[in-house]
């Protein structure tokens, strides 16, 4: 039996798909719809102190579109909840009472004073919510007031606030990290030092999503002006994956539970985050793009994939890819691949040729015996994967490992022995191999 249920920092959830703290979780109405659609949990949109913040009354979102206006990247200048604190608390309490099997975590952001945190934690505890998430990530608006990413960018503040929270509540504390820093390991270490039960990441990335060339102002434009927003959606997934992996690999934070956030759109995205160490994932943009129904494919897809791999529980594969996250210097330089084009699948668009010819290694033909024909020239191919990346037909070009013989490019025999940069003769700092 394949079991999708998770227990993340003690919080039980029927599946690993939570809605992130964001517009979809601002009200009971939305959250109930999400639970009905099958979401395993929600992080309620960030609560602050009264009087509630206000939002702009013009456009607050902007987008980067791919082909056919597929939403690739998404940007917002919305602030934390703009509803009175008490209204949110009442709704949280009621929803939790009605949806016992779902995870309900409350996101918080108040000024950096211990008293403020004590006050709000008490009120949240009364709702019987499952835990809190500290919003140290919001990069716009709130950060100008010394909150959100202004806290998340200073590890000492993270540690301090986390410690207060752990001290003043029995609820699990998840610290949400901002990616707008140089080294994600530092804030994660600070959260751990403060006693955090988990970190969640990434929050949004500082962004100007586009420029209105008529108004000569950033989008979204409010009366002729624009402010940077927070970037999210499928485009940020690679950045998020790397940051999750960095924390999962770091000896100082190894084993610290991670809730993966950033562009999760499909079950596959979720599985990737989890393979890199995330115990569950949080989703926002995919829901805001397609509605709550997207979770159905996430649930079915993850289940089907787990079955095909023989996994019975998500813990079977969480973190499985972490040991394979390495540094460049430890990659095997004796591993040799050549691109191979499946002529039956090739549609002869020639993009592999022109990409290789113009910008890389001149390793793909355009014409053979007067015929339009695209074929890899092994003597030139460095195995870079550019052609695979630009080919419009999936699996038409694949990278094939050479396991024996001579590399036609270097004319050197294929070595089966592992050899990385640390021992390479060109490396002035190479470590000498021990004499045998």
């Amino acid at each position, binding site marked *: 039996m394949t079991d999708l249920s998770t227990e993340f920092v003690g919080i039980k959830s029927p599946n690993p798909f939570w809605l992130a703290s964001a517009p979809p979780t601002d009200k009971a109405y939305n959250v109930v719809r999400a639970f009905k659609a099958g979401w395993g949990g929600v992080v309620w949109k960030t609560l602050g102190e009264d009087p509630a913040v206000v939002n702009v009354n013009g456009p607050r979102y902007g987008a980067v579109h791919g082909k056919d206006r597929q939403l690739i990247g998404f940007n917002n200048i919305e602030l934390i909840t703009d509803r009175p604190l008490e209204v949110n608390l009442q709704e949280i309490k009621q929803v939790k009472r009605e949806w016992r099997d779902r995870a309900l975590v409350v996101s918080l952001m108040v000024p950096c004073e211990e008293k403020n945190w004590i006050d709000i934690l008490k009120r949240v505890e009364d709702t019987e919510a499952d835990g809190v998430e500290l919003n140290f990530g919001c990069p716009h608006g709130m950060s100008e007031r010394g909150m959100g990413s202004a806290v998340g960018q200073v590890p000492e503040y993270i540690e301090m606030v986390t410690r207060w929270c752990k001290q003043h509540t029995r609820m699990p504390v998840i610290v949400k990290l901002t990616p707008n820093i140089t080294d994600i390991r530092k804030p994660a270490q600070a959260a751990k030092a403060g006693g955090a039960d988990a970190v969640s990441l990434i929050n949004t990335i500082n962004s100007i999503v586009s420029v209105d060339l008529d108004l000569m102002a950033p989008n979204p434009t409010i009366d002729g002006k624009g402010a940077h927003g927070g970037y999210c959606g499928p485009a940020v997934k690679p950045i998020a994956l790397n940051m999750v992996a960095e924390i999962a690999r770091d000896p100082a934070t190894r084993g610290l539970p991670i809730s993966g956030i950033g562009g999760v759109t499909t079950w596959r995205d979720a599985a990737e985050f989890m393979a890199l160490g995330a115990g569950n994932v949080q989703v926002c943009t995919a829901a805001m793009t397609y509605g709550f129904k997207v979770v159905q494919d996430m649930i079915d897809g993850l289940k089907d994939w787990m079955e095909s791999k023989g996994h019975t529980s998500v813990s079977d594969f969480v973190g499985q890819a972490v040991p394979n996250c390495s540094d460049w210097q430890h990659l095997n330089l004796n591993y040799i691949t050549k691109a191979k084009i499946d002529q039956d699948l090739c*549609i*002869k668009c020639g*993009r592999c040729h022109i990409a290789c010819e113009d910008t890389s290694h001149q390793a793909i033909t*355009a014409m053979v015996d007067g015929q339009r024909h695209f074929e890899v020239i092994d003597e030139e191919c460095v195995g870079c994967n550019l052609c695979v990346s630009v080919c419009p037909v999936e699996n038409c070009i694949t990278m094939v490992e050479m396991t024996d013989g001579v590399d036609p490019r270097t004319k050197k025999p294929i070595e089966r022995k592992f050899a990385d940069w640390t021992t390479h003769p060109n490396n002035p700092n190479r470590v000498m191999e021990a004499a045998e």
Partner: protein
Amino acid sequence: MADTLSAPDIRAGRLTSDDYLQNFDDIHPPLDPHEAAVEADRCYFCYDAPCTIACPTSIDIPQFIRQISTGNPVGAAKTIFAENILGGMCARVCPTETLCEEACVRNVAEDKPVSIGLLQRHATDTYMASISGTHFRRAPETGKRVAIVGGGPAGLACAHALALDGHDVTIYEARPKLGGLNEYGIAAYKSVNDFAQREVEFLLSVGGIKVETGKALGRDFTLSDLRAGHDAVFLAMGLSGVNALAAEGEDLNGVLDAVSYIAQLRQAKDLSVLPVGRRVVVIGGGMTAIDIAVQTKKLGADEVTILYRRGQDAMKASRYEQELAQIEGVVIRDWLAPKRIVGEGGNVSAVEAERMTLDSSGRLSGTGETVTFAADQVFKAIGQTFIADPVNGGSEPLALEGGRIRVDADRKTSLSGVWAGGDCVAGGEDLTVASVEDGKLAARSIHAALTA
């Protein structure tokens, strides 16, 4: 048979005025900006794109589609016009299914090419709706004079290119309007809202082109006259003759030449005045056959049957065009050659056709079996011919090949200072786009000769 004894049923005004409007509306409605954006996104921006190679005028198709997708349809039109100044009409009439769209790599994996023709129309329509006149600017005047005979696609393309190079061009056109088959031949529903004339206006707006309509070579002037008065001459008068059926009864009332009927239809202000038979038989297998068949059906004919002497695959009209006709209700009967047009009291009443086959050596031959098709009206659409007399008015004869003017790769004829292109030259493909290319190539060669 009672049917053949009565007078043939040929009438005008078979339909309501709304029917005419609907039947002769744009057959392939233009893409709106959203549809164009979605379709443009399907282009892979191929290297050395097969579509461009397949285009007789070598339009940089990936480039113009990319311009549409980046929100620059006017720029896309400029890319199109750079290679094909009649890109607007070609977008409407090109058999794209056998040219660019047949070559599209999307066919390989999906069997569904990018709709290049419709995208080209989107770009050129957008251009014409947003630019008054033209973006082209003529080079300084050279003082060289070029005469162009025939204001069809080849003549117009040549005239535009030469005017752009600064030469002084005069187009001599026998008919009252420029445009050639774009104006007088293309099916009405492919060129709605007087597009052919709007395109002519756009093209002439570059300046430097004088137009003499109602002037025919061989009647109003000779080739020698033109050569004497100009630095170069381009002949592009098309095909003015029609093939004869060589079957008994060809002279009966109700047996018509499809080309003239279509010209009449194209010029008609009111389609309800055109007389059309209840049962129409069309003889032929090219685009003219398809166009007359579909148009008579749209004019209210009850039954329209195309008789073609070979198999459907051999028809010059593409399979796509054949299917469009069939969707309109036209019946295509192949392997049937007309033997005799049957008449009653001087009027056509039927067509007697012989069933054909290929003999053991692969030659077309009759089986002896005949089939009779009752008809009120019969259209001949069996090809046009070049009438050489007008070009031979001078002292030096112009060399012909297969009954049309012989030209080299630069579209030079056997006479010095005389170029030719379009349907009147040997090897012509009878395609608008091929004629445009002829005009373009000839202009390039003429310009080189004039500036040497």
